[in-house]
């Protein structure tokens, strides 16, 4: 869209580069643990919630954020590949938004390394995602008296693009895991054994560490390509548009998702993706950047085999030699990282949206 600004490739690469260097120096991975508390402004979050579920925030007013980030699916996409904007498909699986405010880097390829405000702008304005001209969006929002009041009550004053980009991230802070057996210290024996494997024999903690169970860094695990990206022209056109806009060389002939290569254009980064969080996996299947793995048992099997096939594959991955019971224990642990569903009215805007835009009364006499 007209107002989009892309994060500087070099700047982001530098930021991540520093992160990588620090990670390598650390002898031990940061331990997994509970998430820190976030301070939430209630009025702003409430406004963000309404915006998140409002289809008027997409170009043709046909989809909302929640169409790809489905509450019952842990705010991830139901299908292997996100539906994308009407008129095209998509080429990746929408990540879970639960705990998204705790992340430091966003998108599977890590192309946003600043904040959720930028991420919100990216999702709203990208042509294959929500294709929203934010100038139209601002005026739509201003036309709805409910929003006019909510923006005012939230301390934003008159509705504006900038406040939309602040309110949605405030809402996303409310999408934080709660009640997981792991956080509550109430894991089953099997899950506890799984955790030991996670930190030990299975080596998961090498990348899945810290309170989010992710190092926030790119790795190539050899996940096979999802051929639907290329065999379905609707998805492929979104992929082409994306790679064209990002300036990836030879994009018309690409037959694989370049991943983090997008950031560095270094061959060794081809096919790397940012380590996903492991929280709320119970809801967010299918897994991986392209939804190629359907169940957690399959994910464990994938890693037990040492990941997939790729010349760039991380040397951290090797066959694990887990027996059937160990695999089950590991799955039990992964499941214990999921908490309560965030599908109640405190998280989901369940009131109807107006079917049309009310006219402003006495229009000729009032200021715009």
């Amino acid at each position, binding site marked *: 869209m007209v107002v989009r600004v892309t994060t500087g490739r070099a700047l982001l690469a530098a930021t991540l580069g520093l992160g990588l260097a620090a990670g390598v120096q650390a002898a031990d991975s940061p331990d997994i643990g509970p998430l820190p508390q976030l301070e939430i402004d209630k009025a702003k979050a409430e406004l963000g919630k309404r915006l998140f579920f409002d289809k008027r925030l997409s170009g043709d007013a046909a989809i909302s954020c929640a169409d790809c980030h489905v509450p019952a699916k842990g705010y991830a996409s139901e299908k292997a590949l996100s539906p994308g904007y009407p*008129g095209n498909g998509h080429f990746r699986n929408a990540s879970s938004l639960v705990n998204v405010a705790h992340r430091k880097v966003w998108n599977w390829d890590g192309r946003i390394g600043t904040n959720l405000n930028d991420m919100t702008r990216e999702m709203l304005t990208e042509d294959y995602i929500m294709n929203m001209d934010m100038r139209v969006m601002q005026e739509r929002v201003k036309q709805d008296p409910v929003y006019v009041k909510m923006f005012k009550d939230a301390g934003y004053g008159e509705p504006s693009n900038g406040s939309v980009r602040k309110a949605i991230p405030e809402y996303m802070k409310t999408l934080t895991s709660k009640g997981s057996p792991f956080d509550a210290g109430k894991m089953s024996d099997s899950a506890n054994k799984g955790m030991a494997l996670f930190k030990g024999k299975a080596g998961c903690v090498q990348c899945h560490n810290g309170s989010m169970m992710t190092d926030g860094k790119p790795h190539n695990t050899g996940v096979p390509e999802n051929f639907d990206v290329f065999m379905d022209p609707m998805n492929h056109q979104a992929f082409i548009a994306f790679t064209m806009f990002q300036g990836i060389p030879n994009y018309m002939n690409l037959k694989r998702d370049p991943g983090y290569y997008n950031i560095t254009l270094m061959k060794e980064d081809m096919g790397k993706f940012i380590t996903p969080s492991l929280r709320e996996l119970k809801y967010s299947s299918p897994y991986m950047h392209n939804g190629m793995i359907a169940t957690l048992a399959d994910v464990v099997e994938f890693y037990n085999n040492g990941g997939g096939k790729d010349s760039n594959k991380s040397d951290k991955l090797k066959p694990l030699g887990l027996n059937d019971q160990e695999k089950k224990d590991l799955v039990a642990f992964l499941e214990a990282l999921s908490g309560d569903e965030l599908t109640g009215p405190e998280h989901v805007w369940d009131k109807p949206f107006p079917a049309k835009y009310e006219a402003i009364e006495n229009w000729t006499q009032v200021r715009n």
Partner: protein
Amino acid sequence: MSVNKIAPTLVAAAVATVLAAGSVQAANEASAAGTAKAAPPALAPLGEAPIPPDNKSTPDKVELGKMLFFDPRVGGDASTGCSTCHEPDQGWAWAEDFSRGYPGTVHWRNSQSIINSAYFPRQFWAGSASSNEKQAKAAAKGGVAGNGEDDIMEARMAVIPEYRERFKKVFGTEWPLIDDVWLAISAFERTMNTTGKYEVPLDKYLKGDKSALDEQQVRGMALFNGKAGCINCHNGSLATDLDYHNIGIPPNKRWEEDGLAQVTFRFEQYAKGQTEEGYRAAKSDWGFYYRSKNKWDRGKFRTAPLRYIEYTAPYMHNGVFYTLEEVVDFYNAGGVDEEGRTTLFPENKSKLIKPLGLSDEEKEDLVAFLGAFSGPEITMEKPKQPPYAPLFTKAELEAAQEEK
């Protein structure tokens, strides 16, 4: 020529020059050279549509342009193409006051016909695009029009095998390029003119076929050129001086009643680079002001061409008049509608617009003459949309997977 009876002798020579050359260029030069007191160039037959040297026409390009003109994938959500707002059955325009706009929006100006668009050096009501090519691009991308982005539209072309083939043949590129889309569409548009079998009665008459107009229309022409003063702006071979005037059009009342139209109204103030105060205060379309930023240009719009108007109702930049009778009444009243409404910038209203004192019969004659600007309706069977198809085979993808 009847025009000689009313044209001051001062400009007779200029008029003669225009008629002899019969070209747009000559008419413009005459107009530019003329003083305020000089009479405008006379109406003249439409010549051949100019083809710009940087977009030469070929049958293959025109054919491709026609397919693209009708293809809704040249837009944001693949549901709006050029023809969505320039519908052949609606005069290659849109038969509502405001153009329909992108889904989820409504436009704020009347959709203009593409018929004869080839002749105009600038497009849009305020002349903001300097060619058909730039108009096509701007319309396909505008937030309340096509709302398409270059990359997704270009990507779509690449996964349509027939387009790949045709673009390669026409433009010689390996992959379709978005800028070539505008070239092809413009080449097609430049074939859509009221020439040949679509010639309008007035042009036949001006070329010497005196039977092309009936007596009432001839009387109407005399009024057009004389008492009614239409010729002051609607002159030359295009029936427009291509200049911008405030003729007193009142704001469309839909802005008072329609929330969706209010959304777009403010968006346009924002998008067109208004001042903060202008954004807050505007209650009508400021027209040419958005380009010049001069306050005396508020409410000015380009003089509309008149050929093919039988099919392009409603009229004016905001479509406030649905019939030519209403248009004539408006001018007869001196740029005031039947409710007494006029422009919000009366200080900018053209001095040429004043009560005309036309009788009912004269008004009818004038409307009858306006009918002579339209010939047969231009219709066309819409081309089939070429289908999408995968770019790669499964075997190619498997091979690539093996190579990883």
